[in-house]
């Protein structure tokens, strides 16, 4: 499986009379694009706004962010399966990407209707929260989009996400026929058999057991080829992920984060240098019995063995009981002789519970990516742990907070940061113990 990834850097985005990429400037015909988006009668609002690095701007609620990519040669479409897109296996041929930007889905639509999962993510383009976020260094093209609340949550999700993908597709399409300024070839060629074989194991949360939406293809949480429900472990070629086979969002992990996953790209670039990257096993988490959880971990370790893996990097995207699958995967790998490294954020050692939920002697090598923020509005906040007021809000001016969402908070005002787990390894945070 060979994939050429052509990069078109974007150093500026302007609204103008046509939509094109030229010499690093992306011009967008806003009215024409929005007219196309508004053809979907399910939408009640659609607006495009720009957020630039360094601005005193807060974006709320961020539901997903997507890097515009387009398949210009080879089978399938980028971001396959989601919101009705084709499901052909991706990862081959040539894909173009617009780098340095993202299209942000700014919407109040909830990810599913099971309750409990409220929108909680906002981005700042500057200040302490902006410093933490890798996406604050992008020019963010924000689609503020809402759907008719009389529709089902599933339909609302489909409508707003289709609209976001439509903008992405139209922008990326401008690069078709152009020669990319930079090209990188991704191919897992045979390498020196003496190099250690390494597998990457991202654990992907699924809300399907809780949402009761297990038979539906899509609702707006992390999806593999559009499937967000609990499924047994997926063996993926890393090229598929570069082509968007795993899409966001779940909390902080957006489609942009997943497609630009630094761990995956680093493993790839070191393939044949000091490791033999044998592939990706994506494990679904939040199964709801001990036996199911354990089964997924055992099957993951078995699959890793069949791939010949000697080492594994295990990472995750959502904690809580989902973390059991994460640590048990580490244990299951170690027990079949695969050295497993856990990439994890850390929790405050309060309450006396073990940081890893269970004592895990097998986890003898852990990479900490610390945490950002400290939770949610209403939680006890340190005096210094409140983000300053911003001049401009893109999206909704207020948000509901509190245990039953009974309090109204001004989004522009001082705001505690949401929790940020950098489990993709973008690496803008470190922790100091003292």
């Amino acid at each position, binding site marked *: 499986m060979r994939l050429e990834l052509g990069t078109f850097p974007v150093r500026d985005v302007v609204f103008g009379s046509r939509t094109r990429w030229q010499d690093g400037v992306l011009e967008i015909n806003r009215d024409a694009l929005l007219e196309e988006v508004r053809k979907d009668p399910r939408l009640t609002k659609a607006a495009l706004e720009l957020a630039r690095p360094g601005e005193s701007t807060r974006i709320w609620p961020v539901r997903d962010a997507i890097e515009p990519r387009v398949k210009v040669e080879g089978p399938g479409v980028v971001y396959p399966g989601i919101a009705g897109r084709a499901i052909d296996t991706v990862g081959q041929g040539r894909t173009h990407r617009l780098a340095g930007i993202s299209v942000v889905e700014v919407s109040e639509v909830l990810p599913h209707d099971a309750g409990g999962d409220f929108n909680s993510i906002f981005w700042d383009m500057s200040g302490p929260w902006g410093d933490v976020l890798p996406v604050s260094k992008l020019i963010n093209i924000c689609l503020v989009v809402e759907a008719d609340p009389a529709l089902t949550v599933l339909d609302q999700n489909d409508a707003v996400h289709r609209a976001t993908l439509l903008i992405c597709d139209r922008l990326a399409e401008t690069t078709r026929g152009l020669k990319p300024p930079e090209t990188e070839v991704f191919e897992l060629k045979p390498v020196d058999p003496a190099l250690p074989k390494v597998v990457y194991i991202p654990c992907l949360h699924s809300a399907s*057991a*809780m949402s009761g939406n297990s038979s539906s293809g899509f609702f707006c949480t992390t999806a593999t080829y559009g499937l967000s429900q609990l499924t047994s472990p997926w063996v993926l070629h890393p090229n598929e992920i570069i082509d968007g086979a795993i899409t966001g969002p779940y909390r902080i992990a957006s489609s942009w984060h997943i497609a630009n996953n630094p761990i995956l790209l680093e493993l790839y670039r070191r393939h044949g240098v000091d490791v033999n990257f044998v592939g990706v096993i994506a494990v679904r988490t939040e199964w*709801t*019995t*001990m036996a199911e*959880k354990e089964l997924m971990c055992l099957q993951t370790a078995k699959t890793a063995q069949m791939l010949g893996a000697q080492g594994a990097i295990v990472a995750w995207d959502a904690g809580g*009981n989902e973390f*059991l699958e994460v640590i048990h995967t580490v244990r299951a790998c170690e027990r079949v002789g695969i050295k497993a490294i856990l990439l994890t954020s850390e929790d405050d050692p309060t309450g006396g*519970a*073990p940081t890893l*939920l*269970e*004592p895990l002697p097998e986890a003898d090598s852990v990479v900490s990516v610390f945490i950002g923020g400290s939770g949610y509005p209403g939680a006890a906040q340190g005096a210094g742990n409140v983000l300053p007021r911003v001049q401009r809000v893109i999206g909704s001016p207020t948000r509901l907070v509190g245990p039953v969402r009974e309090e109204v908070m001004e989004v522009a005002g001082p705001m505690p940061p949401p929790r940020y787990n950098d489990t993709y390894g973008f690496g803008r945070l470190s922790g100091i113990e003292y």
Partner: protein
Amino acid sequence: MISAIYELPMTTGANRVVKGARIEHVCGDPSLGEQKDFEYGLRITRMALKALETAVDKPTLFDPADMPPAVREVVHAS
């Protein structure tokens, strides 16, 4: 403690842990139908009561499958 993910309370030091059904329905299983759901729930609850009567010196796991099925008491009008 009745828990579907019973390994967690076991390793965090709960004295008596009873295996529950699922995270979303710990004390029963609505997919079994009303009668069997009730019997399953009763079995879990009876095991929890038996656990309370049992002396333990370390975190101990109780499995409702080890509990004999209850005979549903018939209330006689007399």
